[in-house]
């Protein structure tokens, strides 16, 4: 038995003692995936949905997601909204200031591809992936809290597939 089977829906607790056999990779990934700490900032209307996701109804903290006020303590960046060129500079620097390994969730159409500003928005970055690497794209305008939670779950899956040796390179 390992963490993967432990988290499966089909896993039924029998009350008998269980033994978990695992590797260091899996143990570290299990810990990392279940405590993704995003940098606490919002960019536009998607931030309202993000705040709703943090709040009691959707409670992102169930997944260990807990906003931090400093990039030094965070390993996840949720780009929640329109990225203007003025903000792109700051986002880029904040991303650089986060410790490795770090992940980016692009939330909503604006940060995915420019959204409604894709053609005529002179001030909008057409997709935040042009300035920082993005791990998960959450579609929607704005995405509902369920969609953001879905993105976080997808990111957890991604984190669980990584290997420590690759991260240390």
């Amino acid at each position, binding site marked *: 038995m390992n963490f993967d089977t432990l988290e499966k829906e089909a896993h039924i607790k029998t009350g008998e003692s269980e033994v978990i056999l695992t590797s260091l990779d899996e143990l570290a990934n299990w810990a990392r995936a279940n405590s993704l700490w995003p940098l606490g900032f919002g960019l536009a209307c998607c931030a309202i949905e993000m705040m709703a996701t943090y709040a009691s109804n959707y409670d992102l903290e169930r997944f260990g997601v807990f906003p931090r006020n400093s*990039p030094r303590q965070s390993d996840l960046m949720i780009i929640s909204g329109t990225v203007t060129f003025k903000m792109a500079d700051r*986002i880029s*620097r904040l991303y*650089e200031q986060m410790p*490795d390994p770090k992940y980016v969730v692009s939330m909503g159409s604006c940060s995915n591809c420019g959204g409604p500003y894709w053609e005529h928005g002179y001030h909008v970055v057409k997709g935040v992936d042009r300035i920082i690497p993005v791990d998960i794209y959450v579609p929607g305008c704005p995405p509902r809290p369920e969609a953001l939670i879905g993105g976080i779950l997808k990111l957890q899956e991604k984190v669980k597939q990584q290997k420590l040796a690759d991260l240390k390179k």
Partner: protein
Amino acid sequence: MLSDFGIVLLAFIFAAVALMLVFGISWLLRPSNPTTEKLATYESGEDPIGNANIRFNVRFYIVALIFILFDVELVFLFPWATVFGNKEYIQQTNGLWGWFTLVEMFIFIVVLALGLAYVWAKGHLEWVKPDMKTPKFKSKVPMSMYENVNKKYTEK
């Protein structure tokens, strides 16, 4: 057997070892790729410029001094309050003790209040307010429009 200080020493050693263990594990596992941008001072994504030690208005000094004066006055009032109503002293002096301490404390307060009056009279409590400057440039917007707004809110 361990003495009490021995237990304290053990606690110190255990704390140090536990911390080193945790930091050691972290050091073994974490990737380390420092860049100049990452090592830069964090200022919410802005360029970190200038010194953190900024200047501020010297008037705060006077206000802080006056505050300390009355802060200390309050500190002196507390021990006075404990002996003021002392029944034994009052009985021994036929009630004179109460009047004596009351007058003494009033003298003390009046001396400090005199200081406050002096500061007040000297104008150290006045905070210079910024003047409203009327713009000096040619504009199609008539000055009376600004005046109307200003008059409306100064009269309230």
